[in-house]
């Protein structure tokens, strides 16, 4: 089989992820966690992990179950496994949040939330890695995009492992000196491995393929794109191995972080150059909303890097790290995620609904499932609100941050409404919506055809 399969549970992952994003934005708007509370406060950890695990990681896992088969031109190893995986990840996240609330004194002590979170999240990660790993293993030698995903999964594993140590140390189970040291000093490694390694490297790999597909641009596998992979991998290795060795054996953690940061910056510089090439070499002059929003997200990434460099030069990075992480998470990763989601939901819905009758009856195009002029205003509101919030964080104006988060929340709800309309075929003309043999798709899961 040359083609890829339709992922049965990807829509469920997307739905769970969007609920988490709305919850996180609502909490920030309500004044829960940073910047209304200190950055290291348990309440902040609640919001951070709703974003990192609930939104970004579930979004990425759902997308990978659909698109790793595209990257390697083989069907997914197990199309049923993503459902129990989702249950483990969501259950693990719930336990983790309860653990943080327990730390804050908001939930009664006595129940082992952190160990339960570790067990469920580790199991969830193993299931993700097993399913995607087996799919890619069967497709060796791997394409460049698939190699990015492989490195991303390794970073995912390192992030989960470090997080597990932290959770067990906070629960009082892990008491060995090096583990306590890791918990005390290792948070930058955990955060950078998750946001930079798992989420960014994987997004970079998938973006090479998706941007080429959707803009009709040549697929890149040239020296610079391989350089992005090697430099990114080296940055991760220095970050994780160098960082842990520095903490446990008395080395310099700032030195390891700086070296990793330099390698990452070089990698991202090459990536930016590749993406400019892709946009310039595209055959479709008029690009769709998803590619325009990917451009806006990439600009956010560039602004984030420039902001980081400027703050380092001023010696104020530590003071404003919250603003940098906010822009990275919401401007780059979330902006890219929402833009691609707008396309992927339409594409997958088309495949499920109209694929089986292709050749038997006239069918709409993927673009006939969406109304871009109606959707785009929500995207621009979202990006504008992210930049206002980032500026307010830098200026130390928490009330403005809350107002901007409320605008982000409104924009996200507007985008979600468009996604639901797409899934329900509400924007397809009556003539083409449900020809003979076509079934209305379910909102939260796909029904792959029987082969």
């Amino acid at each position: 089989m040359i083609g890829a399969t339709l992922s049965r549970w990807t829509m469920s992952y997307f739905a769970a992820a969007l609920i988490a994003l709305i919850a996180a934005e609502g909490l920030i708007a309500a004044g829960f966690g940073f910047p209304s509370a200190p950055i290291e406060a348990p309440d902040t950890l609640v919001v951070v992990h709703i974003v990192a695990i609930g939104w970004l990681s579930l979004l990425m896992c759902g997308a990978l179950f659909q698109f790793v088969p595209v990257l390697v031109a083989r069907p997914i190893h197990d199309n049923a496994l993503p459902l129990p995986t989702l249950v483990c990840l969501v259950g693990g996240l719930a336990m983790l949040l309860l653990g943080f609330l327990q730390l804050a004194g908001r939930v009664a002590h006595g129940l082992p939330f952190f160990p339960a979170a570790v067990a469920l999240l580790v199991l969830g990660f193993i299931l993700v890695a097993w399913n995607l790993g087996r799919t890619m293993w069967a497709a060796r030698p791997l394409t460049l995009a698939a190699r990015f995903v492989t490195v991303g999964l390794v970073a995912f594993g390192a992030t989960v492992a470090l997080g597990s140590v932290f959770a067990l140390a906070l629960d009082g189970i892990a008491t060995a000196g090096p583990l306590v040291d890791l918990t005390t000093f290792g948070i930058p490694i955990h955060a950078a491995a998750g946001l930079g390694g798992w989420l960014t490297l994987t997004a970079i790999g998938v973006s090479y393929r998706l941007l080429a597909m959707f803009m009709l641009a040549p697929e890149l596998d040239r020296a610079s794109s391989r350089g992005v992979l090697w430099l990114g991998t080296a940055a991760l290795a220095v970050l994780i191995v160098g960082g842990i060795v520095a903490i446990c054996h008395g080395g310099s953690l700032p030195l390891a972080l700086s070296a990793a940061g330099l390698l990452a910056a070089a990698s991202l510089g090459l990536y930016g150059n590749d993406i400019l090439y892709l946009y310039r070499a595209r055959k479709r002059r008029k690009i769709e909303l998803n590619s325009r929003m990917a451009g806006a997200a990439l600009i956010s990434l560039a602004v984030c890097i420039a902001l980081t460099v400027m703050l380092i030069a001023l010696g104020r990075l530590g003071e404003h790290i919250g603003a940098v992480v906010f822009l990275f998470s919401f401007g780059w990763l979330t902006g890219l995620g929402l833009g691609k989601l707008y396309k992927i939901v339409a594409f997958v819905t088309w495949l499920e609904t109209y694929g089986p009758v292709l050749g038997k009856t006239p069918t709409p195009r993927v673009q006939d499932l969406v109304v871009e002029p109606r959707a785009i205003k929500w995207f621009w509101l979202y990006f504008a609100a992210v930049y206002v919030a980032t500026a307010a964080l830098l200026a130390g104006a928490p009330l403005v941050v809350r107002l901007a988060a409320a605008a982000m929340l409104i924009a996200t709800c507007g985008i979600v409404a468009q996604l639901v309309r797409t899934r329900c075929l509400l924007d397809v003309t009556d003539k083409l919506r449900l020809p003979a043999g076509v079934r209305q798709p379910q909102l939260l899961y796909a029904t792959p055809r029987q082969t």
Partner: protein
Amino acid sequence: MSVPNEALAEEVREALRVVIDPELGYNIVDLGLIYGVAVEDGGVTHVLMTTTTKGCPATDYLRDGARDSAWSVPGVEFVDVTLTYEPPWTPKMMSPAAKEHLGITDGDGW
């Protein structure tokens, strides 16, 4: 291929136009995704086709759609659809009408 078979092959090509690439929104014949149509005596029809990208999730639907639309032509008794990625598809393979429809520019390179 005899003259009647050539005429039937042309009818099959015409029938294949009902199949669209969902992403590009244009028929697979003008997009250049059909590399060849041959009809043998007895209405046995061979379609050689590709997709815009290897591993495209729509691959199986496009292949089956090509088979079904070819089979709908009177005189066609059997259809064999073969997928190939040699040569890989490029936008240069589109008809002028498809390029114009998609606003795709000509030029050197890919």
